[in-house]
């Protein structure tokens, strides 16, 4: 029984090496849903009543306490929301590398990709915190601002261009340090395009204290526009249903051919 399961797993990973990416994402979602992550979030989000009656200086001092769990939470959030965005590029990396060095190639690619998003983390945390502090702990104003920024960014040429670059694949060197370098570089490029495309969307959960209820729809929008109409940002809510319908088949795991 265990042998069969191991064989099935081995076959799955051989045919769908990008399954690693989804698996890590699923673990991150699970961690976010569990209580420790929520308390970590509360540590830096300082939303709602937590700040009532505190002076601005007190709020900043109080906020400093929350940085470490906040960054940990950011890591989980990126893992949950952003790793699935890189799944197709990871598949490209895996199959354009020798099987023997597939793990190493994926690691180099994901390191590059995650580096970009992790580097952006402190900026998001600072922006979200300052907005909420300035708004006196209220969530409505920062959230409204983030939603407006996200909607405006969706319609820009830069957004469209970045979204298109998220579909880019590159030739990879096959051997040695050149192979590692080209996978890392591809990861950095992919991460940069991804951040440029989705930075405004990601402001929404950041401004709202990383509420799961907002993270899920934001992740869905980002995935929809990435997978269903490669070229075009999602502009009209009326088109969302078709995009969701088209997302379903595009998430069906690619079969070995």
């Amino acid at each position, binding site marked *: 029984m265990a042998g069969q399961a191991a064989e099935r797993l081995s*076959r799955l990973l*051989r*045919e769908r090496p990008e399954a690693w990416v989804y698996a890590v994402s699923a673990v991150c979602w699970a961690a976010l849903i569990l209580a420790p992550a929520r308390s970590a979030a509360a540590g830096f989000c300082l939303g709602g009543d937590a700040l009532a009656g505190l002076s601005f200086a007190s709020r900043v001092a109080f906020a400093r306490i929350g940085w470490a769990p906040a960054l940990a939470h950011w890591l989980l959030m990126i893992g949950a929301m952003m790793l699935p965005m890189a799944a197709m590029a990871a*598949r490209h990396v895996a*199959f*354009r*590398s*020798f*099987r*023997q060095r597939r793990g190493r190639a994926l690691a180099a690619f994901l390191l590059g990709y995650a580096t970009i998003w992790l580097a952006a983390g402190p900026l998001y945390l600072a922006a979200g915190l300052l907005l909420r502090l300035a708004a006196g702990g209220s969530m409505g104003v920062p959230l409204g601002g983030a939603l407006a920024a996200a909607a405006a960014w969706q*319609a820009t040429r830069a957004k469209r*261009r970045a979204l*298109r*670059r*998220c*579909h*880019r*694949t*590159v*030739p*990879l*060197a*096959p*051997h040695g340090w*050149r192979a590692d370098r080209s996978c890392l570089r591809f990861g950095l490029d992919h991460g940069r*395009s991804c951040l440029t495309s989705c930075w405004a969307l990601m402001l929404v959960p950041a401004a709202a204290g990383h509420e799961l209820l907002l993270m899920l729809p934001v992740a869905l929008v980002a995935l929809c526009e990435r*997978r*269903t*109409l*490669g*070229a*075009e*940002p999602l*502009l*009209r809510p009326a*088109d969302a249903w*078709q995009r969701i*319908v*088209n997302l*379903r*088949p*595009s998430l*069906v795991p*690619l*079969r*070995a*051919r």
Partner: protein
Amino acid sequence: MASSPPRVRKDVYKLASTDKTLEWYGKAINVLKNRPIKDPTSWRYQAAIHGYNRSEDPLKKSSDVLPSSSEQAKFWNQCQHGSWYFLSWHRGYLLWFERTCLAAIVKLGGPKDWALPYWNYSSKATGTVDPRLIPPAFRQPTVGVSPNPLFTPGHQGGTSGNAGITSFDVSLECLKRTKFVGASTGGSPGFGGIQTGFHHDPGTLGACEATPHNNIHSAVGGFMWSFNTAGLDPLFWLHHCNIDRLWEVWRARSTSTGDPTESAWKDFLFNIHNETGAAITFKSSAMSSTIANGYKYQGISDPFAATAGSILASVEETPVADTGPRPPAELAGATDGSISLGQGRSSARVAIAPHAQSILASVGDDSPKRVFLNIENITGKGPPGTYKVFVNVPEGENPDDYGDHFVGTLALFGISEQSSGDAAHGGSGLTFVLEITDLVQKLQDEGRWNESDLDVDFVPLRPVPDGMDVKVGRVSVYHA
């Protein structure tokens, strides 16, 4: 109510001299051309559904009023390339274009059973008729004293109709693929292309899309050279009817395993307008049957059948046994850098990894092992040229003297669009997959197989158009 019999798409080279199909086509084009670009049933809107780039628009006027950007995003630049939706999306595209023409024709008092003709460039030349020439009705700028609505400037060969189309361009080897869906992982590209999401760009091309589809675009030239102008050439629609017909030919072959059964293919929704200008959606699977969509083809005989009157009937039948589940293909070797293609011969050497040498060496031992040459991430600019690809031609020899080392062509239709950072897939370029199993087996049988290296030569099929600048990102070998 009895339904009407299916309309028949006829071979343009077999139309009777009294046949009015092309005359009505020309009249319909004139009607569509008189409609503004904002009208979904206009000639320019119909072409923009395939692709549109304002800076490339040869018919652009300052007075143009374009559809809103959200309408453009939803209905323009929709053509599916490098994807398993290539055939089904283009079938839908042809269908509503044809119905739009038909509506105009009927309004003019024309036949209600009018259908687009197809251009079967792969059929055998008979007497003075050479089907590889651009059909005569499309060659002259005028008919009498009036402009010819079927004419498009810029075709290679000018009014002679001879665009230099060769037997390599019209090869129907793609029909021998037994599976519709190909692999994105270096293995067989399948007849119909690889599994993708929405894919408005070539990536890895399916066998039918690569040849003859891309070859004809690249050979004919003019508007046919670009995604963004191709639909403005009346000949484009005849070319795509033939590609659509080849899907029917493939489906009718006994070795074919049929259309994809996955809901990921069947349920995918596309946006388009119908002949009244109303926005509709269609499912990929709704395009599986021509009869259900009200038309059929004059001829779908198998060109490889022993009795077929095709020049290709003499080609040895070797069905490509790509049935059954197989593990994904694996990389056996690749070049370390890129290769520039130019006006002359270019060469690349692929080092086969030590662990893969024994695997490739077993290809000839009655093993089901297959070998594929991947020409990856071809980027460039300028008009698309076409290259012949040869494998392991002895050093210092002319590849053209080694016909048995020829493994396929690279027709680079779409290369400019796909190389720009603004392209839908961010400038990934084109990737071709050519099966070389038979050649590897032959070289091994003859004791001429080199285990450690594979030499690949690229030779222009026709003089490369001026201004073309092309780079192959990587050449690799996969075994499956």
